[in-house]
């Protein structure tokens, strides 16, 4: 008889098993699996005895007293969310890039009076190329440093990765913004690469501050197994090419993007 895996038994116990009836049927017939489930349940039952303090019957009123004076007169409307400090920061960065692109455009136009005037789309694309290119270079550096971090130590040795976590968190914020933009622009390859990068950054940001060498090795293996560094490099180089190409003949960009998406 094929026994249930630990994963299947935990999923069954936690009510997230895909085929609950099948597991229940097997458990009814298999003493070994029942014993294994009981061992899992014993650990969970012990954890259930951990106390949660009772904050008191009037806790709700206490919370209200604590926060009432800090609440604005009215809740913000949905559009006011755009003026939150975090978003304002991102907005300021994009605006700064726009201004730079605009000034650069003006200068270029004066130098070559015969050239066509760049369209809004081309300017927007140029900004995206520059900004994402910069983000990918930073991410590449981060991945390389993480891949090369202290390879020769015993598996149980503890490593502090809090600095890497902070960098991952910073990169995450930017990454989300660029991934959404790439999706809106229809750049599937870029969006998919940024999506994979985001998942990895999330993993690092959510790891404990201190990990064992073995856990760090697993993180490194993830970079290799998913080919994240390679993909980031490829898209990064491609962006550099696009950056060069946008200057003399920006009209070619769309076709490049379509070709890449086809591939």
């Amino acid at each position, binding site marked *: 008889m094929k026994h249930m895996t630990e994963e299947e038994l935990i999923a069954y116990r936690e009510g997230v098993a895909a085929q609950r009836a099948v597991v229940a049927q097997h458990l009814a017939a298999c003493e070994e699996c029942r014993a294994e489930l009981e061992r899992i349940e*014993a650990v969970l039952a012990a954890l259930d005895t951990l106390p949660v303090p009772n904050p008191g019957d009037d806790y709700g009123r206490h*919370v209200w007293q604590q926060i009432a004076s800090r609440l604005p007169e009215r809740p*913000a409307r949905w559009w006011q969310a755009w003026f939150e400090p975090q978003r304002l920061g991102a907005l300021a960065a994009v605006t700064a890039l726009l201004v730079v692109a605009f000034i650069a455009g003006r200068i270029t136009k004066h130098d070559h009076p015969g050239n066509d005037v760049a369209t809004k789309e081309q300017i927007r694309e140029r900004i995206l190329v520059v900004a994402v290119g910069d983000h990918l270079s930073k991410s590449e550096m981060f991945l390389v440093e993480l891949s090369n971090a202290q390879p020769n130590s015993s598996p149980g040795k503890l490593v502090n990765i809090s600095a890497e976590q902070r960098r991952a968190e910073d990169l995450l914020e930017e990454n989300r913004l660029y991934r959404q933009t790439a999706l809106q622009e229809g750049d599937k390859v870029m969006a998919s690469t940024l999506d994979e990068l985001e998942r990895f950054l999330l993993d690092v940001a959510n790891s404990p501050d201190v990990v064992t060498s073995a856990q760090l090795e697993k993180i490194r293996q993830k970079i290799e197994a998913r080919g994240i560094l390679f993909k980031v490099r490829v898209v990064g180089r491609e962006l550099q090419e696009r950056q060069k190409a946008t200057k003399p003949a920006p009209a070619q960009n769309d076709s490049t993007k379509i070709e890449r998406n086809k591939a």
Partner: protein
Amino acid sequence: MIRMQPSVENTQTIADSDAVAVERTMAGDRDAFRVLVERHSHNVFRLAYRMTRNRPDAEEVVQEAFLRAYQKLGKFEARANFGTWVYRIAANYAIDRMRQRKKEEARKVEPAVHEEGMENDPVTLVRDAAPNPERLAHNIELRKQMEIALAALSYSERTAFVMRHWEGCAIEEIAQVLKSSSGAAKNTVFRAVQKLRLALQPFVGKGMQARATGTES
């Protein structure tokens, strides 16, 4: 498993009443928000305490969750459930708080000793049931190990475990908090239980032996 799940009818009534309170808050009635705070504070505290494992942090999480909920109320979809929504905000903030706390504090090997909630403490329960010194010592050790095992989980694992095992949240809800897919959230629950089991199985086994000895004597 300690799950505080209200009945389906009750849930629906609360959700309807919450929707009205949200609407009134949006129209400028601050007292309506007070109703929401008083109604959901206990549940949010329970989640926050289980995640942060200390009372001051849990209380801060509760207050911050309601403040953020109020500020973001304009983005809250009327069809959604306010209780679930504020829960999610609290879970997200609890993760931030745990991360912040870890950075603030120098590494402490010893877990915090909690004085509150002694009425449910396994140690005191055991003391009442049978004053067997061996069993008492075991329970103290077990509790210490449980705190260590929970603290050793990553933030995502602890969040997933607390939300699924103790709070009975749906996998989709956990996935939203962890900003991952449902499959990944499910795996995180599994990983958490597996790690807890690995860390605690030897002590739980010992407990069975201690119980057996207690019964014989």
